[in-house]
């Protein structure tokens, strides 16, 4: 049984069909890269998986449970965390408040504290700035906060939407190092990226999305060496 299985997903925005029958799966412990250009439907797929959007047809199975119509806040409790596009940290709240909200679904204080220490050791900068108002952090720091906040729910699968967007190369490398570390801890990752080269370099498998359809799939290193991919996404 796959950890996450998406079957024949169709999603509309009004009359516009944004996702035209997409199927894919994520196995436990994998890092999956979902790559594609702007407007291909990557974010829409993530939003549909986590329940922010409802599909017109198709289904989403998480550990064998049908969560297609489950509301977003209940899906979080099942062990799925989503780092949204553009970080969406709570800008008027402090770093620590943001992180604690990440653990909203949990009740065991001792476990939450342990998790907080883990996040702080992974993101030392967040520890230094824990009382700072999040809106005043730099873009890269906000991305770290968004990731730390998602990890506070102790997820079994982490969905990440464009974590490298708008960041300086140093921060991009740092973010991808952390994704690697998260994977090493045994957390499954579904990564949506425009930075195809970076994404495929850390992924196990990849799916290529074009205007609402999956056009190519394969092992990440195969995709990295695929001539069409090189031309279209890697700029070689």
């Amino acid at each position: 049984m796959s950890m996450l299985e998406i079957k024949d997903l169709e999603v509309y925005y009004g009359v516009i069909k944004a996702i035209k029958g997409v199927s894919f799966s994520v196995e436990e412990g994998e890092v999956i890269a979902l790559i594609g250009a702007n407007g291909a439907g990557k974010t829409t797929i993530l939003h549909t998986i986590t329940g922010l959007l409802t599909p017109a047809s198709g289904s989403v199975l998480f550990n064998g449970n049908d969560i297609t119509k489950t509301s977003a806040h209940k899906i979080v409790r099942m062990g799925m965390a989503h780092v949204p596009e553009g970080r969406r940290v709570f800008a008027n709240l402090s770093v620590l408040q943001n992180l604690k909200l990440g653990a909203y679904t949990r009740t065991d204080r001792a476990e939450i504290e342990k998790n907080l220490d883990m996040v702080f050791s992974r993101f030392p900068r967040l520890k230094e700035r824990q009382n700072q108002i999040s809106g005043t952090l730099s873009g890269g720091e906000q991305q770290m906060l968004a990731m730390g906040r998602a990890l506070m729910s102790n997820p079994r699968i982490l969905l990440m939407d464009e974590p490298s967007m708008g960041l300086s190369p140093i921060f991009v490398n740092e973010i991808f190092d952390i994704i690697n570390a998260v994977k090493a801890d045994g957390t499954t990752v579904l990564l949506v990226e425009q930075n195809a080269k970076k994404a495929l370099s850390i992924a196990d498998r990849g799916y290529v999305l074009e205007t609402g359809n999956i056009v190519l799939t394969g092992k990440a290193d195969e995709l990295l060496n695929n001539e069409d991919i090189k031309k279209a996404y890697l700029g070689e």
Partner: protein
Amino acid sequence: MSFISYLINGISLGSVYAIIALGYTMVYGIAKMLNFAHGDIIMVGSYVIFCLMSGTGMSPLVSVILSIVCCTALGITVEAIAYRPLRGAASPLAVLITAIGVSYFLQNTALLIFGANTKQFTSVIKMEPIQLFSGQVTVTGETLVTIVCCLIIMIVLLTFINKTKAGQAMLAVSEDQGAAKLMGINVNGTISLTFAIGSGLAAIAGMLLCSSYPSLTPYTGSMPGIKAFVAAVFGGIGSIPGAFVGGIILGIIEIMSKAYISSQLSDAIVFMVLIIVLLVKPTGLMGKKIQEKV
């Protein structure tokens, strides 16, 4: 000496405005809507107390508690029936107009049940007046209880928001409903809770208002409701300390205008001050907007 007694009365009236404004500002901050029916919840709460006390002879304390329960339930029901289906409507005007509709509905229902005649509200506060400055200033029990109530509510509310999980969830929902859902927060539940708290506060405001100004009609809540809305905007809508400060200042301005300028012009002066504040500081006294970095 009369200045001090005006000031105390102003703070007392302002406290009522502040309690109502807290409801306005919380609902606006969290559900992003102006609940123009908020003032009429005050009226409903006052009628509940009136009926229980003069109709069944219940004790003031029990009547007030039941009134809070009724208003809380009413607030949750109104939100679920009238506002929730319109969340995500194409135009934010839809829910605004609905709120005005709910306001008329509540007023006319009261008119139907109780008629247009003014009912004499018996004060629920049984406290002897206090003499200050060797008898030169008299502070009524109502005035004192109103101010103390407002302070307690303010402290409890701020503690609730800053120290509890539900309070933090409210802050999260007020900033970004989508991101709040991704934290596992039940957004609908949080908005219901906000309406519950706001309406419960409205019941308390009604009790305090009608104890000080004991005439009750179906339109009792409407003018204080509008004034409290002004207070909320004045202080910076969405800000809880802003509603408090805005309410108190508004109350003082109103009483001072009545005392020293003209009682007919007092409302005009109140609105003029609002316009000036908004011209100078469009976000209100304590409204803030942090520039988000991208």
